[in-house]
């Protein structure tokens, strides 16, 4: 409906359509961030539940202001552990995203080149693991990667490892990489596939007709045109991987530092809510730029489809 029809019941229903999800998200998505922000400035004493309600807190903000302490943030920046955790998470996220691209791109490319009739089946096969539980699949890798696990057995069987040797992947960063690539692969493949499928095959034919060798044609034509998919997939993977908890916890052991795990430990083991909040806020600040970029890209992609 391009123009507003001013009949009363119609306008009412329009407001409702927007208001209901809007209010829900304001209350259950945005408001929590305000609280977590406030919490990160508190000391443990103030922060112990039961709380004073948020409204009260907002009204005597000035009096509270003096009680706000940057203690938590100072703590974060002082203690090398946290800095290392942030940097390590960044490193793992970037490296994982690159691995995901390297593994996912050939698969997505092959799917896009496949005969049209089997493409839906291939799609289904990529999505199917996604529908089964994430936790369960990571759990499966434990059985494979642990020292006495299946990988060791297989390698011993083939003769690469001697009978006393064991594969030492479990509880190292490499296990985390395997787990992350495995779990996030569908998130990388699907946007890549969507972009590659839309590619006009005649462009490559034109390139070849003009004398361009196939491999060069890929880098000069296919890859640049698939860039929106690469970007979408990268954002879709990088941002959540930064805050990933389950995989480093189950596969990474104590040597792998990731900030999501640190947050969990601060909250559940140390029961230090304000510190956990500070960790979260800092993580959020680091991720704000990628998140906003992602939102813009996603919104623009939806508009283009119009």
């Amino acid at each position, binding site marked *: 409906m391009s123009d507003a029809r001013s009949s009363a019941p119609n306008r009412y229903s329009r407001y409702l359509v927007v208001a209901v999800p809007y209010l829900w998200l304001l209350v*259950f998505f945005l408001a929590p961030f305000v*609280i*977590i922000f406030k919490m990160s400035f508190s000391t443990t004493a103030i922060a112990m539940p039961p709380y004073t309600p948020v409204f009260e807190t907002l009204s005597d903000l000035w009096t509270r202001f003096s009680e706000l302490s940057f203690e938590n943030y100072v703590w974060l920046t002082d203690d090398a552990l946290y800095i290392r955790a942030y940097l390590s998470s960044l490193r793992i996220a970037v490296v994982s995203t690159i691995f995901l691209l390297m593994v996912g791109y*050939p698969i997505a490319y092959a799917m896009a080149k496949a*005969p049209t009739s089997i493409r839906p089946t291939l799609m289904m096969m990529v999505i199917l693991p996604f529908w089964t539980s994430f936790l369960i699949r990571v759990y*499966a890798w434990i059985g494979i990667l642990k020292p006495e696990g*299946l990988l060791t057995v297989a390698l011993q069987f083939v003769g690469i490892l001697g009978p006393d040797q064991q594969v030492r992947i479990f509880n190292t960063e490499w296990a985390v990489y395997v787990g992350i690539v495995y779990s996030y692969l569908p998130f990388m493949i699907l946007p890549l596939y969507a972009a590659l499928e839309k590619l006009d095959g005649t462009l490559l034919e034109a390139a070849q007709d003009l004398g361009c060798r196939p491999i060069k044609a890929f880098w000069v034509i296919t890859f640049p045109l698939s860039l929106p998919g690469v970007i979408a997939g990268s954002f879709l993977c990088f941002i959540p991987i930064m805050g990933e908890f389950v995989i480093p916890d189950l596969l990474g052991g104590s040597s792998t530092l990731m900030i*999501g795990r640190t947050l969990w430990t601060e*909250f559940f083991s140390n029961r230090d809510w304000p510190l956990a909040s500070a960790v979260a806020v800092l993580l959020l600040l680091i991720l704000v730029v990628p998140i906003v970029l992602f939102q813009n890209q996603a919104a623009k992609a939806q508009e283009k489809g119009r």
Partner: protein
Amino acid sequence: MNTRLSWFNVTALTLGFAFLYLPILLLVIFSFNDSRLVTVWGGFSTRWYVAMWNNQGLMDAAWVTIRIALVSATCATVLGTLGAIALNRFTRFPGRTLFSGMIYAPLVMPDVITGLSLLLLFVAMDFARGFWTVLIAHVTFSMCYVAVVVQSRLVTFDRSMEEAALDLGCPPVKTFFKITLPLILPAVVAGWMLALTLSLDDLVISSFVSGPGATTLPMKIYSQVRLGVTPEINAISTILIAVVTTGVIIASIMTKRAEVERRRAERMAAATP
């Protein structure tokens, strides 16, 4: 376009799918392993399924998880569809940028942040943690996924059909339910299924916002896994995988059959003047 697959592509696909499916396959196989150890095959046995069935904690958690998943998926679908309509149809309303941001952000937001922030909200509201808090949390992040799925369908939807309905005397709300909704239903259903999976699968957020009596299956599995690998987990995993696989395969077959039927009808129609 050359539709034959080169050896490179075939290798990529084979290795890729092998990588994706091998762990799942192993999981299923070893759920029938008589031995407790992962590496030793003790013979075929269903004892772990029995053990799983008798594990009250596991079964209770499964029941909680299913209930939460079904209810949250339905609520998320309603809210997400409304959100998609709001984004797609109403191009100017105050705070639209914020709304759009709130819809897309949860798609990438790390679970730990969402979980912690929601817990703080519930504590601030003095909301007792348990079934309802997990439900609310799941609805909140699932609805955004539903919104994205439904919106991408709405973008390709032919608005002239809605105009035709209006022109024939059907007021806007009725037009939505009689014309638009039936035609975008596949996307809405896909959104529902997506929300269901997300809810069934969620560990981190549930851990933060859950309370006594509302332990979800992922939470239970996680706590048991930390103690060591038990094949009961394999058993329940296999069942979950079997259910999901069957569902997805049935859905695929039905879609394929409808597509074939449609093609045949179109060809038939094109033949007649």
